[in-house]
């Protein structure tokens, strides 16, 4: 095959891979919505990009990218084993509140004043997610249901703790007192908002990507996700893997909660963890990456830019920021349509292969 031919083939594969048409289709539909609403897309899109990356906004965008990427790991790790963790909000909230409690209540020496609350947060998140594991493996209740159902009371519990036992006295605000200085996440040089959470989450993502392709555990997780019975047949402890990945996902979510609380404004503020919708942006990003782990950081970046840019668009072009949620929703719908079509094709393809 000629070089031009193989380049064309490569181009075709890139265009046909789900993220490209999904994002492209969503943008086309969003443009139509803008036109219908009387907004000039020629003003709105540049405003969106500026809102995300220009005028010092990049810092906020990166600050939002870190928890979203962390939550993407929380969803993607169990997903590789075929388990859906939709309880990220609850795991994150409990992680956050535990991190705040540890930082506030235990006088810690400087060396571990950051590390210990983060570790406790990850452990707490793991426990919340881990509660779904026996329900899945012993009783056969799908994790997608139990994680989601456990999430709501977990968020409420965190909320209660922040409002009462851990509340800042005298302000009447639903927030903890400010954490001691020693527990503040060190900021990266020259930034007010980007902390060492960025390299930490980047490192964890790299570790996950490595484990997924280059370790026995990653292989067994993928085999379980692809065909549970096949993995069981091959001697893989599929129930244990379901528990490990769910718990691991919960640990990522709990850690994200800890990172948020230990970052600016250095306290647990009610709603600050769940309100930005990191969990479901992350779910959308992982689904958009369609099972290709390497693509996850990129789809997370894309959706974070959309979200952050939405606010800029609202300020500058008078377009409601919710429009970016429309984009996100459309992306998920298009991804789902592609996945279904591929599934149907694979089925009819299987029939033809037996012909």
């Amino acid at each position, binding site marked *: 095959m000629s070089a031009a031919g193989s380049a064309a083939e490569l181009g075709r594969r890139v265009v046909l891979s789900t993220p490209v048409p999904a994002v492209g289709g969503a943008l086309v539909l969003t443009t139509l919505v803008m036109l219908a609403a009387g907004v000039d897309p020629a003003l709105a899109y540049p405003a969106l990009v500026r809102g995300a990356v220009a005028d010092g906004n990049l810092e906020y965008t990166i600050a939002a990218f870190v928890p979203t990427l962390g939550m993407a790991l929380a969803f993607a790790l169990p997903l590789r084993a075929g388990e859906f963790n939709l309880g990220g909000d609850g795991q994150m909230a409990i992680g956050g509140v535990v991190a705040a409690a540890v930082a506030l209540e235990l006088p810690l020496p400087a060396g571990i004043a950051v590390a210990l609350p983060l570790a406790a947060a990850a452990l707490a998140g793991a426990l919340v997610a881990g509660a779904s594991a026996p329900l899945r493996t012993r009783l056969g209740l799908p994790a997608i249901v139990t994680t989601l159902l456990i999430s709501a009371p977990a968020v409420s519990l965190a909320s209660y703790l922040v409002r009462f036992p851990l509340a800042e006295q005298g302000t009447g605000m639903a927030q903890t007192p400010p954490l001691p200085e020693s527990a503040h996440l060190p900021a990266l040089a020259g930034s007010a908002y980007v902390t060492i959470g960025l390299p930490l989450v980047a490192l964890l993502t790299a570790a996950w990507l490595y484990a997924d392709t*280059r370790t*026995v555990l990653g292989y067994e997780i993928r085999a379980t996700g692809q*065909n549970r019975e096949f993995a069981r047949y091959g001697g893989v*402890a599929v129930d244990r893997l379901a528990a490990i990945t769910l718990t691991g996902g919960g640990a990522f979510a709990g850690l994200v909660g800890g990172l948020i609380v230990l970052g600016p404004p250095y306290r647990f503020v009610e709603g600050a963890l769940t309100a930005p919708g990191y969990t479901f942006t992350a779910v959308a990003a992982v689904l958009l990456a369609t099972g290709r782990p390497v693509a996850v950081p990129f789809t997370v970046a894309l959706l974070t830019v959309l979200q952050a840019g939405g606010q800029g668009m609202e300020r500058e072009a008078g377009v409601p920021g919710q429009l970016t949620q429309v984009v996100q929703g459309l992306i998920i719908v298009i991804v789902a349509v592609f996945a279904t079509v591929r599934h149907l094709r*694979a089925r009819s393809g*299987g029939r033809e*292969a037996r012909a």
Partner: protein
Amino acid sequence: MSAAAGEPAADVPAAELVAVTKRFGPVLANDAIDLAVAKGEIHAVVGENGAGKSTLMSVLYGLHRPDSGHVRREGRRIRLRSPADAIAHGLGMVHQRFRLFPELTVAENVVIGAEPVRRGSVDRAAARRAVEELGERYGLRADPDARVGDLPVGVRQRVEILRALYRGAEVLILDEPTAVLTPGEAARLFEVLRSVTATGASVLLVTHKLSEVLAAGDRVTVLRRGRVTGRFDTARTTADELVRAMIGRSLATAAPPRGRGAPPRGPYALEVRDLSVRDRDGVARLSGVSFGVRPGEIVGLAGVAGSGQRELLDTVTGLRALGHGDSGEVLLGGAPVPRGRDPEVAYVPEDRHGRGTAAEMSLAENLLMGDQRRIRTARFGLSRAAVRARARDLVERFSISAASVDAPISALSGGNAQKAVLARELSRRTPVVVVEEPTQGVDVGAQERIHALLAEARDRGQAVLLQSSELPELRALCDRILVMYEGRVVAEFRGEDATDARLGEAMTGAAGAVR
């Protein structure tokens, strides 16, 4: 072979495919195929996997539209855009996987989609009558009020045939109809097909099994790589002639020899002692099963599906743990099996898609399963180069035709996927090998190779437990054959003493066949 214009009406074929060509991407599935089915005949279509049989039948049933060529029905050209069109033209199909509603009754399943209506609601009495009348006419007895989910497979297939006939099918297409049947049920099926053709209807029979073609067919069309390579009258052809048309050469005539001379002696590699197990509802599935397999012998397991083979083999391979209400033990080399899947037992499962492979994983990753902990490089690491190298080695040694070890295993033909599973399991040289239906859905050429592989495993001293519904396969390969019936081993034959008749008798629990 197509009917020339102007022939007398009586000789007009019931259905005819004229120069049908169908491509799937680069694959030419059907290449200008002509096929004519006369009225009142059983016309067999045979060929290896991938020869284009199912595609051709799908064209005739309106599931695929041909790229060129067309379909004629009683001499008139018809257009088939969907199965509904095909049904309207009197074509009926019985798929390999039944399309029945297990919760509904026989009568409901038969009339579904064309229910007799009386005063705006389904006329159940008429539906029941229709089933009885059809059953009477074709010798297809089935209780119209029975729930389909409660019926044995053979009867379910009859319901499928009744449904096609009820819809007015005059050309009945059956795709591998005996794959799921016991020998007795298969014989009954062919009686039914005879009575169907006796009324002037025609049957198109797609099958792998040449013995059936020769016994039940009138004429046979052989496909190979999308083309017709032979048309024969079954009365004037032989199995060898058909095989040559199917695979382009003769099969090695001798089946791999059964154990040489004296049967092996000595301790069992695998021993099952007084094993009784119950299912979740407390129903006994195995009752006091005892037997052993020695190194260097192949022991066959015959029986009608559902006689306890599933439970027995799942227990032996460790996929089913013994629980409350179960008793007995499974010994490997004299020691009880550890809990969970035992790496000392290689296992080729019957359900290649559901259990034996993960369709979307690469061939290399599929070949790895079970050995992932053995070939890891560091404590956790898995070298992709090592995984690939191992896969290439197996592909070479077991002559698996695959474009790349990195492509999904679903890209392989059925025979090659099965060879891949065998390669993975046999290459581990475990003391015990459990094999289920090794040649199901596999073409003749690959069957030969698979049988040779099992014989090699035996000659290496592995103890092979072989479950198969193909009695000739068992007779050719096994030193001993155990017959299961209702959760018990009811008979044991030496390989050379077993005949289809004696095995069949034991499989149906007939008295006198007790071991």
